[in-house]
């Protein structure tokens, strides 16, 4: 079983990386780029027989994968 976790900065939190990337894309001639935000994409490989995957994933995100002070997360489970 695999989980895909997406961690992004909360709205309103400064994203210096995203800003720099958006500008760089502009300089490369992609004038259509208005903004960019950079987050993390984490693939977690899980044993197939876990009970309460959802509950565990939520905890993994809260405890480690996301810094909930400034980030939010979502996940998908792929069987």
């Amino acid at each position, binding site marked *: 079983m695999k989980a895909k976790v997406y961690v992004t900065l*909360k709205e*309103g*939190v*400064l*994203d*210096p990386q995203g800003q*720099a990337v958006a*500008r760089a894309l502009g300089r490369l001639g992609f004038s259509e780029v208005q903004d960019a935000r950079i987050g993390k994409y984490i693939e977690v490989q899980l044993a197939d027989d876990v009970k309460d995957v959802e509950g565990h994933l939520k905890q993994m995100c809260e405890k480690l994968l996301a*810094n*909930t*002070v*400034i980030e939010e997360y979502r996940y998908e489970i792929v069987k």
Partner: protein
Amino acid sequence: MSAAATKKEPEITEALAKEHGLSPDEFRRVHDILGRAPSYTELGIFSVMWSEHCSYKSSRLHLRNLPTSGPRVIQGPGENAGVVDIGDGQAVIFKMESHNHPSFIEPYQGAATGVGGILRDVFTMGARPVACLDSLRFGRPDHPKTRHLVEGVVAGIAGYGNAFGVPTVGGEVYFDASYDGNILVNAMAVGLARTDKIFYGKAKGLGNPVLYFGAKTGRDGIHGATMASAEFDEESESKRPTVQVGDPFTEKLLLEACLELMSSDVLVGIQDMGAAGLTSSSVEMAARAGNGIELDLDKVPRRETNMTAYECMLSESQERMLAVVHAGREAEALAIFAKWDLDAAVVGRVTDTGKIVVKEGGKVRAEIAVGPLAEGLRYERPFARPASLDAERALDVAKLPVPKDLGVTLTTLLASPNIASKEWVYRQYDHMVRVGTVVRPGADAAVIRVLDGAEDPARAKGLALTADCNSRFCALDPYEGARLAVAEGYRNISTVGAEPLAITDCLNFGNPERPEVMWQLVEAVRGLGDACRALETPVVSGNVSLYNETEGRAIKPTPTIGTVGLMPIAADAVGVGFEEGCTVALLGVNTDEIGGSEYLDRVHGKQAGVPPRLDTTREVAVGTACRNLVQAKLVRSAHDCSEGGLAVTLAESCIQPARAGAASVGVTIKLDEPLRADLLLFGEAPSRIVISFPPEREAEVRAMAVRYGAPFEVIGATGGRRLQIYQQSTRVVDVPVDELTRAWQGGFRAVVS
């Protein structure tokens, strides 16, 4: 009219004022000053300007008594940073500041933005930052939060300083239960400028335009300044979205743009936007010049939509500056900002009204006389010596058992995270960028050379830098503790061979509304002043951080001292490491004072007694002798005694190689003092430096020590692979250096892995 202006504002009540940290009495004063009720924006402005963080309302009365001038002082406290003359038309500009609360909430970003803030304080005055130091205090090593906080804080300091390009060359790290719920992150920045190119935060010249430049404004850290002045409670966890994120890349551009702007003649005054952002920068600049400023918030570059005037004025978005330029020269300034890809705009002008006027959407949102805002409040808070102090100090040394094997005790102390090597920390810091680091972290003070203006880069002069405080001493006696902190800084600078010039401080205390805490502050400031007068190191800048407590438990009083020294030739500095075949001597006097020592805490589980006595005359004698010995190239190594006492000092000199790549060396020491062995070895009396030199130089070394009035005694010789200490022919310690090395190198890692 902008969308923002149509937002409904809350009703201004005493309760709302209280939420803003203004007491009913303070709220009444707001009314008196305005002659009417404040608007929401005005309430916000008053709340941040009158916060403890910005106004120093509890400490000001006492700080007044600090010595702040001296023959070399160009600018003392009151500006963004202190300025000290180092000759040849050059000045060193430095300051230390806390970022404690934000770092507890979000260690990486809190520490990172702390570094960013202090760097701006220094380069806003015209200096290029050449070094940073960091003084850190965490809770017990085994506290569940400690590891996460240590890793985050260190990574944050590294992440910001390394990218910005300033070497982080020194600091300190301590662990103590009193910081379990309230860590300390104090950062110090040091810069160099030409004495004729120093800039001040003054909004001079009626009609001159006020420019904003740097990053765009967002809703970051709104109420950061008031948060920094409030105690922690359960709720502060929910204040999280106010965390600011640092952008060292933009800061680097900001630095280069500032220096370029400063090398032209368009600039009148400049100030960074630190705590309370646009509010404090504009108010302080206007106040220093005795002028007013009118701001048009519609011009402020913004990152987010629908920001209100209140939010714009209180935002603590990082990497922003406010500048006043000569009328008609805006375009030149804007061209420089464009070159460095920075946002910039003319956002206001200097007026003669003596008022800060804030317009937004065509309406006046705030109009306040600058004087009372900037002057802030001044409280004469009651203080009282805590009744429990005598009981805490009580110590019956006779009842302490002498450990059976003092070699084991020494190894234990070396492995204490408070004493163990901090290499895990400073390896994460780029401490060599700018090709200036002559003495790297690990010695008593770092030394960086001053390349600018040096005729021969190999013989350039140097700056010696250190940050110090033993808060265990301060808890037992804040007056003596503060004096000892100043003396330790003085001594660390002298040990490498430099002359102490001046200090900056960061005064970290609990809630000043509690008389016992206030007493600690008053006593510490008194001690600080007395020591600085005696050692002739004036205080040129500093910072006060109060309300460092969680649920009513205050941190140990922690007046961190940053000391800056001058080294005529940087390359002459010495390190702590022994080399083979040298004579070892002590400058100073051993005692059996054990109060507040690491030994007492670590081995006997007691934080008790009184701190060792400081004799400033002896401190000066020992320091002056050492400095002159180093500069005369008579000694090969020097290392002072601090935590862990004489035995730890000797061990550290054995462990650390004299030169990169060289092997470590053992030593045999013979002590004569008829004192209890454990107290003699591990007592932490100040004013002691262990030096080593080739045997044939002994007479000269002794003569020099005597000339400066420093007690001098040969205590042993280097060689072999063991540390052996004899007391009156009894062998009290005998441990292989490799064993000591393992303990010392592994002690800190134990905390983080």
